């Protein structure tokens, strides 16, 4: 390539067609650009009429309300060893009178939570190797089913019994893992949540927009 001596900038086509002459090129960039470059022109100020002010208030209120609704799912926080006073104080602020139970007709069946089964006797029969008779295992399962029958009336929706046994047989392995978590989430889907009225000394904080 001609013209490539001593770091001289040369292009492979005639640059005059674009209107660039040698001297008018800006100097080469050295290093990354600044993080917050200077802007020559400042942005136009925001509109500030009453419609905007109203929508602003609406937005902040809505954000605040939606954070308190039961839709807002908090991650399972690890319980500290000592329950701090702050936690009890914070719990009172939640909208506990609105338990949310979705209408299960609208969602696929697999999203329903497992109803917690009472394990009155540890099913040693299932744990032991297959030396145990298969019949005994089935009998035990029927017993557990009967225990479940009492439990089921508490839940909102009626699931078909056959479906439950089918599910139960498939997902027994998972159930033990699920159980610990279900203890904590029992409040959300199952009816037996009891509100003893302690949390209702809510102050008139509802009107304030929190940030």
């Amino acid at each position, binding site marked *: 390539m001609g013209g490539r001596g001593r770091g001289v900038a040369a292009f492979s086509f005639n640059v005059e*067609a674009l*209107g660039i002459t040698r001297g*008018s090129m800006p100097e080469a960039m050295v290093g990354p650009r600044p993080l917050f470059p200077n802007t020559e022109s400042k942005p136009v100020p*925001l509109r500030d009429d009453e419609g905007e002010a109203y929508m602003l208030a609406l937005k902040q209120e809505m*954000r605040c309300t939606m954070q308190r609704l039961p839709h807002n799912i908090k*991650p399972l926080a690890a319980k500290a060893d000592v329950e701090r006073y702050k936690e009890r104080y914070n719990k009172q602020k939640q909208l506990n009178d609105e338990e949310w139970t*979705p209408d299960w007709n609208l969602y696929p069946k697999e999203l329903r939570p497992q109803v917690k089964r009472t394990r009155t006797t540890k099913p040693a029969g299932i744990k032991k190797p297959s030396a145990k008779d298969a019949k005994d295992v089935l009998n035990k399962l029927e017993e557990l089913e009967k225990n479940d029958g009492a439990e089921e009336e508490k839940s909102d929706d009626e699931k078909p019994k056959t479906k439950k046994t089918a599910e139960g047989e498939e997902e027994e392995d998972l159930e033990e893992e*699920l159980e610990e978590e279900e203890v904590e989430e029992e409040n959300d889907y199952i009816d037996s949540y009891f509100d003893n009225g302690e949390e209702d000394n809510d102050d008139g904080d509802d009107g304030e927009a929190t940030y």
Partner: protein
Amino acid sequence: MTAQEARLCGLLLREHFGEVVEKIGTHLLRSGAQNLRTIVNESGTPIDLVKKSLCVLMKHGACRFSIGRKGPGSPVEYQASCERILGILRYPRYIYTAKTLYSDTGELIIEELLQRGHMTMSSIVKMVADRLTHNMEEGRSIEYNEVVSTFSKLVETHFLQRCPPVSEVVPPVSTAPTVPGAPAAPVSTGPPTPESFSDCYLVPSVSLAGRGKRRRSGEDVVLDQGTTKKAKTDLQTHGDEGIYWQVNFERFHLHFRDQTIISAVASKLDQTSSEIVRTMLRMSEVTTTPSASCTQALSANEVFRSLPANYSISRPVLDQYLTLLVDDPMEFVGKTGDSGGGMYVVNLHKALTNLARATLESVVQEKFGSRSARIFRLLLRKRHLEQKQVEDFAMIPAKEAKDMLYTLMSENLVLLQELPKTPDHAPSRTFYLYTVNQLATARMLLQHCYKTVANLIDRRLFETKESKRLLEKSQRIEAIMASLQASGAEPEQLTEVEEMISAPEKQQLESLRHHINKLDSAENQVDETIFLLKSYVASTARITR
């Protein structure tokens, strides 16, 4: 679904639904349709949290489920919808529009529905009546019937619609593998739109008699014990179980589009012309399909008859106004014939195009100055120009014109088109033309807008986090003040509590509030630009399909 959109969706989900839902939602957005097991494995969240998040997302319409791609036997797949999540930005605008059209009752109905996704009519009516009663003065309460009538009006004008019924095509999971070859129910190719069901806008006949209940703070302690138990066993069916209502966003968007056109006409011409255009749009509301590029033709006689009573202009004056509108370069109104005193249409697509173009020009002007804007406008009108021609037409000296063109090019607003004269593309014998592609530039600006809003939200969260301690302190003090006032304390106690916050802290709080209000307000206003650009892009895509 771009990176900017994904980031913005994540932030919106976090703010409104919490971090768990954010994680699941962004995972679904990034990876497309997935079934439950894959989501659990890939996102690393416990399965019950995943289930809950999916329920929340589906309730709000941000996610939908369908049969797996492998056929009727495969597990259910979930798919998140980016547009619906981005629509959360626009909630305040929907509520405000409902307020202007249907006053407080309508506003509360829309607000409750937006917050909860979808609900039955009876629950909405009860909740809204209670809220309205709560805000009224003592002794007055609102009848359910009033709320029902507002609800019916909203449904009649199609602002609310029924949720499409979920087809029970989804087979139960446990029996799936046993029947591989059996014929299953027909799988729908795409998600059914709510409007494909004939009962979409049918208000059910519901027996709702009663008044709103005022929630008294003192009685709550006693009442709640009773009501929580009672609510579960109280199966007060009103005859509309299973019929869920949701907000019809498309209708709101049509309304916003009309409002934008009317206000553009008002600011460009005058109030009377905007009233004429408003009348024309109102008359063609029911006859025009949402995706039409212009309204149905209306004769000048009809327009004259339908003008609002307080705008009594004479017939010749109306004709003059219509001629003015037709001749305007923004092409809002077009003339399609001469029968009936002249047949006129409102050019929706052209209006959107021109409004988008005005937005682009304004952006260039604010960012780069008025002379660069002049070059930009020139290129928009003249399509392709050479370097020399740009300098001549824009009447800007050569050096500065070059500089501005290269700045615009580096921002991808202006493109270079090569036009070879000879087959060997020799540079000395090639034309180099500058051009602007309006559609591509609009898309690019739309992405910039998403990035802007995401940055605004980020900054707001950062500011809140920085001053978290101060905010908590001020909240606690307000709570103490409120409880003191409620229990009737003396002024000295109140001032003592007030002084717990020092003056510089108060100032800091004030400036923090000011910043956050500004950031929030900026989000709302950027959303208007987003709406305009998105409508333009969507309208162009429909036309060219």
